[in-house]
C-alpha cells in the first residue's frame, strides 16, 4: 500500500475524510469538457455548414483547404490540398490543432482535466487511484512545456478571428456598415479569446515575468502588472472563451443550415 495508506502514516481507512461534496466540481468539469469535445469532434469532421453571408465559424477559420467555400477563405488563399492520402480532410481539421493545443497545454485546463478526467487527484486531499505518478517529466506530458508556442499560434488565430468579426459587419450583399446578431456573436467570441490569450501564464512570463529586475524595464513591468490582473481570472476567461467559441460555431451552423435567421440590426 502506498500513499495515505503507507505503513508509517496514520491508520485511516477512508481515502478521504472530506465531508463536503468535493466530487461535484470535477464532475461538472468532466461533463462540460466532454460535451465540448464530442461536439467539436462532430463539427470538425462535418466539413459543412460553417459559412453563411460573411459569417464564418471559428472552428473553420482560417479556411485553408482547397475544399473551402471560396467566400470563406482569406482572399482565396488555399495552400492545403483537399485530400491527404485519399482522406477528405475537413478544413477544420487543419487548423483546430492550434486552439486545441493551446487549451490542452493551458495551465488552467491542465489543472481541470488532470483532476476531472485523470483523477490525479480528483480533488484536494482525496487519494488518487493511480499506482505510479511521474507528473510532467516525460513523454508525452513533457510536451506541456511547449505552451508558449501554442500561445503564439493562438495570437495569430485571434487576429484572424477578429478579422472574421470585422468582415461580419457586412450585409449579405457585401456592403459595409451593417450589423447582425451574428456580428455581435463573432465580436464577443473573438474578444473573449483575446482576454483568454492575454491572461495566459505564458503571456505573463513573456511580457515581463522572466525579468529579474522590473525597475529596469518600467514599460514591461506595467504590462506585466496588467497581465497579472487578467491572469487572476484566467480560469474564467478560459470557460467564457470556450463557451463563446462554441456558441459562435453553433450560431453560424444554425444560420448556415437555415434553422435560424441571422437578424440584422441595420
Amino acid at each position, binding site marked *: 500500500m502506498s*500513499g495515505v495508506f503507507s505503513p508509517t502514516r496514520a491508520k485511516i481507512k477512508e481515502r478521504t475524510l472530506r465531508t463536503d461534496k468535493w466530487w461535484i466540481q470535477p464532475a461538472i468539469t468532466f461533463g462540460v469538457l466532454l460535451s465540448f469535445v464530442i461536439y467539436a469532434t462532430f463539427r470538425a469532421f462535418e466539413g459543412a455548414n460553417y459559412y453563411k453571408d460573411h459569417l464564418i465559424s471559428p472552428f473553420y477559420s482560417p479556411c485553408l483547404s482547397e475544399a473551402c467555400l471560396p467566400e470563406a477563405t482569406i482572399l482565396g488563399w488555399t495552400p492545403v490540398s483537399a485530400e491527404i492520402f485519399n482522406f477528405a480532410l475537413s478544413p477544420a481539421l487543419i487548423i483546430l490543432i492550434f486552439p486545441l493545443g493551446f487549451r490542452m497545454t493551458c495551465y488552467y485546463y491542465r489543472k481541470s482535466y*488532470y483532476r476531472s478526467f485523470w483523477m490525479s*487527484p480528483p480533488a484536494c486531499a482525496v487519494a488518487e487511484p493511480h499506482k505510479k*505518478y511521474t507528473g510532467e517529466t516525460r513523454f508525452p506530458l513533457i510536451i506541456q512545456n511547449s505552451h508558449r508556442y501554442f500561445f503564439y499560434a493562438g495570437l495569430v488565430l485571434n487576429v484572424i478571428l477578429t478579422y472574421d468579426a470585422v468582415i461580419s459587419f457586412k450585409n449579405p450583399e457585401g456592403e459595409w456598415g451593417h450589423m447582425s446578431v451574428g456580428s455581435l456573436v463573432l465580436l464577443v467570441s473573438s474578444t473573449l479569446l483575446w482576454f483568454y490569450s492575454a491572461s495566459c501564464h505564458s503571456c505573463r512570463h513573456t511580457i515581463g*515575468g522572466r*525579468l*529579474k529586475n522590473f525597475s529596469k524595464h518600467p514599460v514591461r513591468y506595467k504590462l506585466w502588472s496588467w497581465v497579472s490582473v487578467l491572469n487572476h481570472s484566467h480560469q474564467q476567461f478560459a470557460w467564457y472563451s470556450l463557451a463563446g467559441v462554441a456558441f459562435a460555431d453553433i450560431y453560424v451552423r444554425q444560420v448556415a443550415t437555415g434553422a435560424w435567421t441571422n437578424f440584422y440590426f441595420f
Partner: protein
Amino acid sequence: MARKINLRIWRGDATDGGLQDVQVEANEGEVVLDVIHRVQATQMGDLAVRWNCKAGKCGSCSMEINGKPRLACMTQVATYGDETITVTPLRAFPVIKDLVTDVSFNYKKAMEIPAFEPPKELVPGEARMQQVDVERSQEFRKCIECFLCQDVCHVVRDHEENKKSFAGPRFFIRIAELDMHPLDTLKNRKRTAQEEHGLGMCNITKCCTEVCPEHIKITDNAIIPMKERVADIKYDPVRWLGSKIRKREGIV
C-alpha cells in the same frame, strides 16, 4: 454561549490507531484548537498536538479537519454548525502520536535547496533594491512553513516513493523567491529546480494554493513562473538559441 459539540479525534501512533469520539464544550468564537485544548485539559491529558502562537503566524498546528488540511488555530468551530468535527494528523507524513506527525521530510528538503548567494563585491549597507523588484519574493517569504501545501500535494501524499525526488510546493516557492531575488547571483537555479527538485512532477492541480493559510499564490506566482523559466532554458529552442547569441537577462 457554551454548547456541546461532537469531536472525533484520531488517536494512536505509527503502529495503530483510530478515531475516538468525545463530547466537549465550545464557546462562541472558539477555534478548533481551543476545543482540542479543552479536551486535553479535561479528558485526555496526554493528547499530543503541536501548537505555538495560536494566531496563524507560526504554522505549527497543522492538521486535517474534516479531511481538509488546515491550521487548527484559524478554523472556527462555528463554520461546522452541528456537524461532528473530525480531526486527524496530516496524512502525507509519518505519524508520531495522535495529531503530531514527523515533518522532518520538509527540513531535509530545505537543506537541499542551494542557499542565497549575494554578489561577492557587495558591501553590507550598500544594497539598493527597488520595492517593485522585491515584492514578488516578499510574497513567498510570507510562508509560515505550516507544510499544509506539502501535505496536500498528491505527488507525495499519494506516492511515498516520490519523496526522494520531489521538493514540494513549499520549496518551489523558496526556489522562485531566490530566482526572483534581485541580489541572488547563483547560476542554474532553474535547471536544478527541474532536474533535482522535481518541478516537472508538479501537474499544477493547485491544491497547494487552495490550502495556503497565508494566501500565497503558490501555483500562479511561483510554480508556473518557474516552469516557464525552465522552459526558457530547456524546452524553448528559440530562447536557447537567443541565449547562445547574446546574453539575456534571466537566462542563467
